[in-house]
């Protein structure tokens, strides 16, 4: 049978080669897939992965889509490094959107430069509160944070729907389940006129730099790395493991909540039940494809954003189903895990013997 053995020495270059191999394998997979369903694979790959990069519109949409992915993935990477598995960023993102959106609506139709910062703050608080629920149960009762955080995503989605169908519904909206459109003071400024690219992207860049600095130079980043390597050493250094659980959920909750309010005050411009579109889950792939490194996450965020835009283009131009985006993302995560397993482990073939 096969046997996996952990390698004692892991090549440092695997930091770069693993994501590249995974991307390569995924491309080969979709190539074969397109061939099997009778589409021209070269054309399809061109439309999905190259064409969006050739127009101003494509690039600006890339900025719009990558912003929430990068911000959420940055927050998640802290927990993933420290060994705390927040799978519910989608829920924290939804609550951030709901809290932030509700704050903006509350000040309608008042104007003021303070409205956006305040709503950002409230959104961050919302994301943190939603993240605190799995953190508390993990720290207090040692429940599995993966399950609790994931389940709360569905609660968050329903909560958003309930609010949009109910108290936050647009009074002049002919009973459609959506909020009022945000007024100017509740909408993010655009950085490139004529596109949807908004200043949320600049916030993402600043956060990438901040995280990079904190992880490398600050005591906080040191604790995160020690926790990921050995929880016992973390306790020996003077921090409890519960400290890390709370800290991870506070940061990932805050980042996801921020991404939520940026999305509603940016491209969406109102609260609708379809705010959660899976960014919180895709961000998990972004975090790992970026090797939990802020700079890596920045580039990985762009690649995954490309699959959203390219997938839509392929839907229109080639009549491919929308599922192509999900298929590619899934294959990418799968290849990434496989590539990582092959770099960290060696496989030895063993003869099958009569007894165990």
């Amino acid at each position: 049978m096969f046997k996996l053995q952990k390698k004692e020495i892991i090549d440092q270059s695997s930091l770069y080669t693993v994501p590249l191999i995974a991307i390569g394998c995924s491309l080969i997979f979709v190539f074969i897939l397109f061939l099997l369903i009778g589409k021209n694979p070269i054309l399809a790959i061109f439309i999905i992965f190259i064409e969006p990069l050739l127009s101003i519109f494509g690039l600006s949409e890339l900025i719009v889509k990558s912003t929430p992915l990068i911000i959420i993935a940055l927050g998640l990477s802290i927990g993933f490094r420290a060994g705390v598995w927040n799978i519910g960023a989608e829920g924290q993102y939804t609550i951030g959107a709901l809290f932030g959106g509700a704050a903006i609506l509350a000040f309608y139709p008042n104007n003021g430069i303070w409205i956006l910062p305040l709503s950002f703050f409230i959104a961050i608080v919302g994301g943190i509160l939603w993240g605190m629920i799995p953190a508390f149960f993990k720290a207090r009762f040692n429940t599995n944070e993966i399950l609790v955080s994931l389940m709360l995503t569905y609660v968050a989605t329903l909560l958003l729907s309930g609010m949009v169908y109910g108290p936050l519904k647009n009074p002049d909206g002919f009973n459609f389940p959506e909020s009022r459109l945000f007024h100017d003071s509740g909408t993010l400024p655009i950085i490139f006129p004529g596109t949807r690219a908004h200043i949320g992207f600049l916030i993402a860049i600043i956060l990438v730099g901040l995280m990079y600095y904190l992880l490398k130079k600050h005591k906080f980043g040191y604790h995160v790395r020690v926790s990921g390597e050995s929880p016992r050493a973390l306790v020996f250094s003077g921090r409890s493991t519960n400290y890390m659980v709370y800290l991870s959920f506070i940061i990932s909750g805050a980042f996801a909540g921020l991404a939520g309010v940026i999305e509603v005050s940016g491209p969406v411009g109102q609260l609708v039940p379809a705010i959660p579109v899976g960014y919180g889950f895709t961000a998990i792939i972004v975090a790992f494809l970026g090797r939990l490194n802020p700079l890596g996450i920045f580039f990985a965020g762009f690649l995954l954003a490309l699959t959203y835009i390219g997938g839509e283009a392929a839907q229109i131009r080639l009549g491919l189903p929308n599922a192509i985006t999900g298929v590619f993302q899934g294959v990418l995560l799968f290849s990434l895990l496989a590539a990582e397993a092959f770099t960290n482990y060696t496989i030895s073939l063993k003869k099958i013997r009569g007894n165990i």
Partner: protein
Amino acid sequence: MQNILEIDGISKSFSDIQANNDISLYLRQGQIHALLGENGAGKSTLVKIIYGIVKPDHGTMTLNGKPYDPDTPEVARNEGIGMVFQHFSLFESLSVLDNIILGQKENLKKDKILERLDYLQNEYDLFIDINKIVATLSAGEKQKVEIIRCMLQDPKIMILDEPTSVLNPSEVEKLFSFLRKLSDQGMAVLYISHKLHEIKELCDTSTILRGGKVVKSCDTASITIEDLAQLMVGKAIDNKVKLSEPKQARVLDIKNISYTNPDIYGVSLKGIKFSVNFGEIFGIAGISGNGQTELMKILSGEVGTSDGNQILYHDEDISNLGINERRKREIVFVPEDRLGHSAVGGLSLSENLLLTNLWDLKFFSKGVIDSNYVNEKTVEVIKKFNVQCNDAASLASSLSGGNLQKFVVGREIIKMPKLVVCEQPTWGVDVGSASLIHNFLIEISNTGSAILIISQDLDELRSICHRIAIISNGVLSKPYDANRITPQDIALEMAK
């Protein structure tokens, strides 16, 4: 007597480390053959090759005159080679009998096993209640289970890896008489150890490894312990620094430590009391798993304790303080596990230096790590404590056990603490490094620091401590004077 196993010119390297370099060794029938060497000398690699876990790069082996090249441990067992590992591979929650049956080939019937078991127990004095759950056994009894499992395979050669590291003195005696009996019956024993007096007492031939090569193979009777040690280390071992008399003033005064272990197989501590004076080295002896780890964690503050515990340090009760609050009071801690506890393998030495200094504002400016200062301090530890490594950026996992231990001990001692609490400071460390670490501890105690050592190594405690107490099943004995304590005292306290 004829050679049963011949090893000719075995070499094995792992990436750039030559673990075995042209090793030859001959094992005769009825021989108890010692395989000696420091950590990293290549003992375990050689044994793994014999037992079929590792394949050699070069060289041949001959078993009973036939070429022998095992692919798996199963082949080795079928060829009559039995192995008792240092770390037990038993299922803790199953009974002794279940564990024994699980270790056997499938086709063996239970009655057959019971019959053989009966014979073995009578013939070799290996009595043990086969219905007991393994988790409730002492380390010595667990080793007995491992030996019985091995004996059921009817081996011709028995390999034991550091078998006495978990045994108390009377258990060691029993093991030795068992091994002598095997040898009388013509079985060959390969005995791996670095405890020289044991080898002198038990083994008739010794092969000494250093740096992957055989330095000498000789009759044990014809060589002194000092010469053996020198061959093993390669250079003369420094003489011990003299221990000075402690003052009669208490640094640490433990009025009471009680602790109920939440783990049902764990040990609970019951009313532990002792004190350590200025300039004193106080030893806590005992076989592992008798509450040492729990005591260590309570002393360090990693585990919180219930009310009623009182740990007085300079007359202040520190039992409710966290580990960094205790460090601020110039207490340092060196727990047993190097990798994963007192150091992190995936981090560099300078990052590891920070692990126990996070409370110290000198290493930070507004929370940002002052990497120059950290590096400076790391280089200081490396130089002063003779840590063999590339530089401060080397990963902790790239250091040998002895060097990493010198680093984690040095990291604490360099602070000139008032109280050192360490557990197994020389566990799995080569003789040269162990003697250096002992000297560091003695030197700092001579400057007035109080030192508490929790260790299973009685020789270590007797050679560097002023007083020794024995922990058994969570209860600490009265302290004995280290010069007057006898093996009988220790065995008696351990059996309580």
